């Protein structure tokens, strides 16, 4: 049974959280692979946040919060929510596959 979601605020917040999750997946992939290939990025994360992993975590929290706050001011529908969840799921899966594959290649050839 498919019905219309009447509580718009909940819908918008859920979509904002899903979009924030997708953005975090993209950010972590870029920062992780980028920091391994370009040492100034890793050094900057270490300098600013004491440890590169803490830097990635802090930036992930910051990005999620920004996306959540910005996107919860826009309208949402059940279709846009479903799409956002699918994007969050697939970006997370692709991020995990890309990072693992990168570290396999990195361990074998670098």
């Amino acid at each position, binding site marked *: 049974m498919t019905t219309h979601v009447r509580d718009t605020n909940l819908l918008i917040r859920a979509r904002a959280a899903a979009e924030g999750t997708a953005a975090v997946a993209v950010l972590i992939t870029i920062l992780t692979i980028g920091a391994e290939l370009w040492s100034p990025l890793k050094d900057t994360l270490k300098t600013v946040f004491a440890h590169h992993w803490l830097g990635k*975590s802090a930036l992930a929290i910051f990005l999620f919060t920004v996306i959540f706050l910005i996107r919860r001011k826009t309208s949402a529908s059940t279709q846009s929510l479903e799409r956002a969840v699918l994007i969050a799921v697939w970006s997370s899966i692709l991020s995990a596959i890309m990072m693992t594959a990168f570290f396999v290649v990195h361990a074998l050839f670098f």
Partner: protein
Amino acid sequence: MTAPLTYALIAHVLVGVLAIGLTHLVFMHFLRKTPSWKYLRSLAGWATIGFLGSWASGAYYYVVYYGKAVKPVILKGAYPWAHQVIMEAKEHIFIMLPFMSLALWFLILVLEKQQDDKIKKAVRNLALTILLFGAFIAGAGIIISGAARS
């Protein structure tokens, strides 16, 4: 290893496994025709708190101790790939988990108010993804621990 580091490592493992177990319960309830949304909301909320707790305690152990004392041992041992591949993948995939779990909690709030089959299916897939990531991270922890002792 100091007592706070030992407690942090124990908390990282126990709370993390508990959060994975709670997410497993959420996923299993999604297979029902009429899940109890209030119960699922509670499970997903505690799972998010668990992932955050495991994240924080794991971060303390990893930043303060692992890089200096455990990583060099693994790299010099018989299974250096346990750090080069497994730990590197684990520590970065873990960053995504609390956000995914928080999104799951928000989505269950939506489904609690009004059901939509397409959203329910998408959210079920998100719960399954969190569960698979959690299982990978738990398995990775066992491999890393084994490599450090070998």
